[in-house]
């Protein structure tokens, strides 16, 4: 979303008046936090959670040293991102297995959050791990919910137990007998969607917890949920004392701020994410990915990190100077290629920067094989030619092509690409002046 790709730009604007002065001041942090606050609210993080988060991060950021290689904008994003990641908790996607089978997993959540689909995905995952799960149909209210679970179960290759629309207590009781008979070691109970304020239905599900003492009670939450996520999570947790949270529909373009809100009010781990419509589209939860998603910063930090590893400060400065003065040669191009190999390709890098993919259209395509060919072509040039490609005439091209085992078209293509790259670099440089790189070349 537009609002997000511009967060970094807004932050850059906040910091445009200062060049790396070494420390973040209170005023700068305050101004930056105003933008962060809006970013988090637009991501649907709960208002109270945002307020507390901003207060705690502001305190941490004030007076913080700006790390070498980062500009103030990046430094603030780094701190905010680290704090978000920390709040999101560790990676904890283990299902608590009962010492004596069967392990009971009870799913709960609002209508339409994706419980039935998630039952199938969990069943599939556990079956792949060598378990023998059984799905139990306890959504006795929604029309055709049982049928849906049966279809989902057959897609997952997992049996489904159902007794029609009768008391869920009886269904689970019978299902456990069935599980014992068939040696199912895990029983996954699908339940009806319910509003957390519907006392009758909340009593019903609390009753299941009381009678069967499930090993896992997973709250299934739509990742697109807004401010109400806190109310939902709080109440479900209060009644059910859930053991974990599952986020669904993360394959959409939602920023998923609800994840942070839920985490903040329940303190319970987010265990899994639904990331697609296929039965195998289930992922364990990665706090760092979620943090940068909520922040809407793509993987800017990954780039910052990668850049720091691949380039020394000195090299970066030299390269930057060359771009500025437009003295970037084919030799440098070659060096650039080698560096890029250690960072992943250009396309990928561009994809990682929010907003950049749209601005730099897909005219920079570099694949690995082509890299090797490019290397051969450049090495077949004379030193002079490498320094000034404009000197290369068609007779030279014939020689270069022969020397590198390529064709004249290949040579032409490379020269064209080089020109494009140069142009893109100067565009990046220009963006940097007003944009997020803060005048620093990304790698």
């Amino acid at each position, binding site marked *: *979303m537009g*609002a997000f790709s511009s967060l970094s730009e807004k932050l850059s604007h906040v910091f445009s008046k200062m060049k790396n002065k070494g420390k973040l001041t209170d005023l700068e942090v305050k101004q930056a936090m105003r933008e962060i606050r*809006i970013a988090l*609210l*637009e*991501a*649907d993080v709960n*208002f109270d959670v945002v307020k507390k988060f901003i207060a705690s991060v502001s305190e941490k950021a004030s007076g913080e040293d700006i790390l070498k290689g980062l500009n103030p904008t990046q430094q603030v994003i780094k701190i905010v991102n680290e704090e978000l990641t920390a709040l999101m908790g560790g990676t904890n996607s283990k299902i608590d297995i009962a010492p004596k089978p069967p392990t009971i997993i009870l799913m709960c959540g*609002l*209508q*339409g*959050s*994706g419980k039935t689909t998630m039952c199938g995905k969990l069943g599939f995952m556990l079956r792949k791990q060598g378990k023998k799960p059984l799905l139990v149909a306890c959504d006795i*209210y*929604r*029309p*055709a*919910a049982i*049928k*849906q679970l*049966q*279809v*989902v179960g057959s*897609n997952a290759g997992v049996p489904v137990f159902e007794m029609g629309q009768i008391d869920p207590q009886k269904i689970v009781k019978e299902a456990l007998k069935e599980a014992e008979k068939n040696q199912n070691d895990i029983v996954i109970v699908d339940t009806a969607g319910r*509003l*957390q*304020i519907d006392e009758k239905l909340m009593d019903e599900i609390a009753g299941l917890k009381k009678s069967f003492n499930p090993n896992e009670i997973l709250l299934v939450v*739509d990742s*697109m*949920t*807004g*401010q*109400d*996520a806190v*109310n*939902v999570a709080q109440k479900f947790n209060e009644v059910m004392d859930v053991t974990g949270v599952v986020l*669904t*529909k993360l*394959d*959409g*373009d*939602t*920023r998923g*701020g*609800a994840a942070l809100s839920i985490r903040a009010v329940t303190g319970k781990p987010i265990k899994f994410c639904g990331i697609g419509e296929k039965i195998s589209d289930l992922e364990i939860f990665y706090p760092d990915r979620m943090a940068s998603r909520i922040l809407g910063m793509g993987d800017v930090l990954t780039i910052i990190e990668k850049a720091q590893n691949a380039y020394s400060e000195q090299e970066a400065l030299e390269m930057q100077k060359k771009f500025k003065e437009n003295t970037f040669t084919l030799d440098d191009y070659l060096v650039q290629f080698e560096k890029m190999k250690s960072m992943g390709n250009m396309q990928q890098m561009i994809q990682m920067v929010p907003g950049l993919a749209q601005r730099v259209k897909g005219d920079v395509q570099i694949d690995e094989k082509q890299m090797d060919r490019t290397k051969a072509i450049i090495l077949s040039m004379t030193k002079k030619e490498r320094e000034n490609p404009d000197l290369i005439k068609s007779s030279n091209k014939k020689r270069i092509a022969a020397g590198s085992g390529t064709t004249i078209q290949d040579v032409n293509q490379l020269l064209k690409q080089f020109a494009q790259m140069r142009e893109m670099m100067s565009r990046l440089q220009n963006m940097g002046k007003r944009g997020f790189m803060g005048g620093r070349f990304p790698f």
Partner: protein
Amino acid sequence: MGFFSKIKEAFSKTIYTVFTAKELDDEFYEDLEYALISADLGAEATSQIIENFKEKCYEHKIKKPEDAKELLKQIMVESIDYEIEPYSYPLIILVAGVNGVGKTTAIGKLARYFKNQGKSVVLAAADTFRAAAAEQLQVWADRSDLRLIKHEEGSDAAAVVYDALASAKAKGTEVVLIDTAGRLQNKKNLMNELAKINRVVEKECPEADYRTYIVLDATTGQNAISQVEAFDEIIDMDGIILNKLDGTARGGVVFAISAERELPVIFCGVGEGVDDLIPFNPKDFVDGLF
């Protein structure tokens, strides 16, 4: 209007106290911002409404919160109030939206709504994707004793629609309601399928009154804006059905949507019963928020 009082219960805890303040001071505005954002209006729509409200208070020299209350209501009502052309028949309504917002349920209730008005209705089960979606719609059709056109799971959704339209034409049915598969707005193929269904309707029934509604879950936050944008781009939506207003979520994201494009809310879903769909009334909705 039982449902609007339900909203009131949840929301008034914040907005009610905001207006019990003594002065229109910074603290008042901060609390108001809190209340509006908590209702999912989003940072942008909230600040627009508050700016507008501040200006009007200044214009009318209003100093006391209690006197300002009606003014804010008025601003909020105006921002979501649209003139809606009455239906003519034959009428075709296509219902779209992301997964789990309650499209099928909304169709079931819409069917009853038109039947209660003495119209003949046929349902098209064009969600051929989700497991057991057609069975679910069949239950709703049975509840209102209505015809349902369905094909096998996994079959071409546009073909279902074609058959339903043909059947309606042959029998002179007044209302055709089309249920579609839930799709996340960034899924290209499914969005293309929706465009295809749309083309079938436009080609087969160019004379009919054709409306396209996007169903939103009131629990959804700011992503609803992105949903509306994406669907609107594919089939030019005519309105919103705002579902699940019987929970504690307030559906304030419709203000954020209205700040971006003219898209009226037509109906709201307020429960799981077959009659729990009511025409949207901006004034009642805003009153319910206060």
